[in-house]
């Protein structure tokens, strides 16, 4: 519904001859803060934690990794220390996530300790991913995802989107507040948000939807992350609500992964 609202805003503004141009602003200096992004999934070998720092807006967008952190994940009485494979990227293939298990993250960056925990929810079967011909447009394509929400428990979902295996900035989070126990059909939006036509969605492109069952704190993080840069209607931007304790930005999630792919005919 929020998407719809934005769309209408966009439509009405473009009508009113809105024009856009870059502008130079005096911004306050960046005080570096640690950023942690950690995932445990039920796919083999897919467990990694990125540790980085914020940088000022005038710098490049390159990942600003932090080396030398001690990154540990504990579960069911085991503790695994992750190894740094490149600057700021810590990995292990010793953890195969299991639904129902709680994973504890502990990151120690030169004496500063950050912790988080996440319980991997049960797998909810991803039933279908399809595109009706009428939902295809070169700028905006909206395939449909289908799943059956399990009754009696609160569930939270996260869909990540790829075009030709490239991760998109758009993602979708859902909860079952209005759809408890129902078969849910919803749309994902693949969109070229730039003015660059070469980034348009073409016939033959491969679209991938990755469905994750996530815990409530991760839902809150991702929900607030999608609003964090402020919305078109002028709501004040705010930092997303992190599940990491100790003052770092980011989140740590133990979630399931199911994947479906389609090729635009």
């Amino acid at each position, binding site marked *: *519904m*929020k998407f*719809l*609202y934005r*769309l*209408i*805003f966009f*439509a*009405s503004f*473009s*009508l*009113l*001859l*809105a*024009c*856009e*141009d*870059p*502008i130079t602003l005096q*911004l*306050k*200096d960046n*005080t570096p803060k640690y*950023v942690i*992004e950690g995932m445990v999934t039920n796919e083999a070998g897919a467990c990694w934690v990125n540790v*980085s720092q*914020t*940088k*000022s*807006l*005038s710098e*490049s*967008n*390159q990942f*600003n990794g932090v080396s030398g952190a001690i990154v540990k994940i504990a579960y069911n009485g085991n503790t695994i220390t992750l190894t740094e494979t490149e600057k700021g990227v810590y990995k292990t293939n010793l953890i195969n996530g299991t639904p129902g298990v709680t994973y504890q993250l502990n990151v120690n960056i030169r004496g500063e300790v950050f912790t988080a925990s996440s319980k991997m929810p049960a797998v909810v079967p991803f039933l279908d991913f399809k595109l009706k011909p009428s939902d295809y447009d070169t700028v905006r394509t909206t395939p449909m995802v289908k799943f059956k929400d399990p009754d009696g428990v609160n569930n939270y979902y996260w869909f*990540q989107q790829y075009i030709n295996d490239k*991760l998109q*900035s758009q993602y979708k989070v859902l909860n079952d*507040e*209005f*759809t408890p126990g*129902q*078969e*849910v*059909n919803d749309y994902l939006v693949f969109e070229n948000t*730039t*003015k660059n036509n070469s980034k348009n969605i073409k016939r033959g492109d491969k679209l991938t939807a990755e469905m994750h069952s996530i815990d409530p704190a991760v839902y809150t993080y991702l*929900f*607030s*992350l999608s*609003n*964090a*840069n402020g919305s078109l*209607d*002028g709501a*004040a*931007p705010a*930092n997303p*609500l992190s599940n990491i304790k100790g003052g770092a*930005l980011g989140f740590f999630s133990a979630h399931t992964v199911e994947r479906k792919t389609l090729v635009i005919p």
Partner: protein
Amino acid sequence: MKKIEPKRFLIFIAIILLLLIMVQSQAHAQSMLEKKMSIQIKDEFLKNALDKITTESGIKFTYNEQIAKSKIKITVIAKDKMLKEILTTAFADQALIFSQLDQEIFIRFDPSKTKKVIAGPAANPAQTGEKYNISGTVKSKNSGETLIGATIRVTGTTALVATSNEYGFYSLSLPKGSYTVEVKTVGNKTFRETLDLDKNLVLNISLEDESNQLEMVTVTASPSQRNIKTTQMGMERLSIVETKTVPVLMGEPDVIKTLQLLPGVKTGGEGTGGMFVRGGGADQNMILLDEAPVYNASHLLGFFSTFNSDAIKNVTLYKGGMPAQYGGGLSSVLDVKMNDGNNQKFGVNGGIGLIAARLNLEGPIQKGKSSFLISARRTYADMFLKLSSDTSINKTQLYFYDLNLKANYILGDKDRLYISGYFGKDVLTSDNLSGINWGNATSTLRWNHVFSPKLFSNTSVIFSNYNYKIRANNDETSLSLFSQIRDWNFKEDMQWYANDKNTISFGINSIYHTIKPGEVQAIGNSGFISQNLQNRFSLENAAYISNTWKASDRFSLTYGLRLSAFSIFGKGEYFTIDNDGDVIGSKSYKSGELVKTYFTLEPRLAASFQVNESTALKASFVRNAQNLHLISNSNAASPTDRWVASTNLIKPELSDQVSLGYYKNFAFNSFEFTAETYYKTLQNQIDYRNGADIFTNKPIETQLLFGKGRAYGLELLLKKKTGRLTGWLGYTISRTERKIDGINNNEWYKARQDKTHDISLVTIYQLSKKWTVSANWVYATGNAVTFPNGKYTMLGQSYYYFSERNADRMPAYHRLDLGATHQLKQTKKFSSELTFSLYNAYGRKNPFRIAFKDSETNPNQTEAIRTTLFRFVPSISYNFKF
């Protein structure tokens, strides 16, 4: 100007006021009585002598019949002498005294001055102490419309000034004697009549229109000295004439846009219709249309206001010192009164503009006794959208319409009945099926009754409804969200003109609110289950009494008290919530069961001290309570903003405001200078939590945070009211802050609408009989906004880090608008005109929004992208009247 502490600010204000008083003692030298002239008058009758002085100096005199017929003869030989000296010499042996009254010199007999009374035959009756009353209604002769805020000035044995009320009624108590009654208002010829008062008198006054033009007359003297004589401060009264002459976006005359050009009234940003008065939020304005609350006063996401200027008679905005009869809005009251309809002859007027067409029909049902008015407006821009080749645009629907209806009946000398209605709707859809529509409907039944010449009553029954509906449809599913506020409202207001010293108003008000927060309907395979959020029921009662006491010629005091009681009733479930916003308990109430009542005592105090004929100082204190809250996270008026009533957890919002003001008229009252300063505190302010979910079926309180606010500022306004050039220059320096637990580390932060400096210049110049040109220029510090001060990579994308809330500024906002009106054909029966305007004439790129994103040309860098909405927007509209 980076950080002004309230204390330092108040000292600053005090110094400014002190300076003003010093300037004032100099400015006083400009009095009419000090005008120098040379004149020779030999043994002329008093009236002729005064006429000669008028011819010579341009200064007018006012006097009663007794003076006019007087056989007194005057001799004056003066060379370059002040009028004061001339008159003192001339009247030396006479029982005549003079004083300045408004823009004229008031001459009257004063038997006490000398014993040698050489009065005319109609000798002045000695003051016996007997008092009589003059009362009646002021209306327009041509249309029969009652006139609000007309100045009634009575001169004779004593001089008194009164103002007609919202229904054109006035009442004055005077000692027995001979008087001249003079009635003035904007756009009408002055009425003058001489009468002998020896019994209570009903004097209904009809004023002739100043011209037959399309209300496009120069803005002449709004009732002069209103600002000096009353205790009311923080008030702006706009006649529709003023609204229509000021250039606006797309040439659509707009009451709210014009008000935003006055000091203390701000916009939320480019194009938004939300009005922010003295640091209050957009929802803290109590907007009344013929006494019915209007919950969403904007069309098209705030670009236009819901008030169709054709149907509107008068607009009064109270920024402070609200009279006790008003309540329910924290920061202002906007009282909009619709036209009654012409009860003399049938008339049609209308116009076609760039985006909207208007048509207004009015006329008598029974001549002189009853009339009707139908006024409609619709935008037609959507017709052009269909021509667009872009599929996402040509499927878009985007329009609004509104309809004002009114009828009134004069049931006799003492009774008048009005019925009025408003219906407005906005439709905004894309791709045929999905969209938002919202609308207001209000209707008011009112009965004016004059119990006695001293006691005026107005009884109203009001219905008001606001709803919106969002639809998201496609071939397989349909989803809609419906939300509504519905009010039934009863109001009784009485005005008792007790005597020449005291005017008492009192009344009661009772509103039953039903709020339907949301009804979700789903059809199809989306998995959504249709559901209703619980309706909320509440009863808002208020009683008030207020007295305006004229303690002396110089000092007046208005003191009043409003008691409001807000009662929440079942049926429904009410919750208890912990600090994190999680529900920890709930209680169910049966239908009609009382959940809670909030009582608020709202004192209203206002005092004025008239330093001299043209200068006044005023002070006021006002407390307001608000029990309907708009939960909004945007600064644009958005139809989905959610109205909630106070609950066990959401407490009434309160504001306390003190203000001080200085008022000065000069250059024969053609200039009006106002300086007002205020300090306001706000309690129980509401904001969304970070990461709040607007569309949730959890109790709304789980998404909210509470805190307080403060606002203070100085507003200066210089108005030129007469002549070919009219207009005003306004300047505001102010600060508006909030402190909400859970936002900005619980520290004070600037509210988004905080703008340190705000300047507006409005000029209207009558070039010739046919052409009127106008220009306005506004400048304001940019809104307080939150810009990022860092970035990081998350999920492969760049995201931004924010430290302090609203610690940054948008670039300064400024803009020049130009307008011109050309009078076309004009006959007795038909007149028409063309209006041209150019909005943002020098094309300033005022940002509507600044967004940060990866640069498209170099994705490795961040860019701040400014979105500009309106540059060089021309418009033309055609208006007619017959």
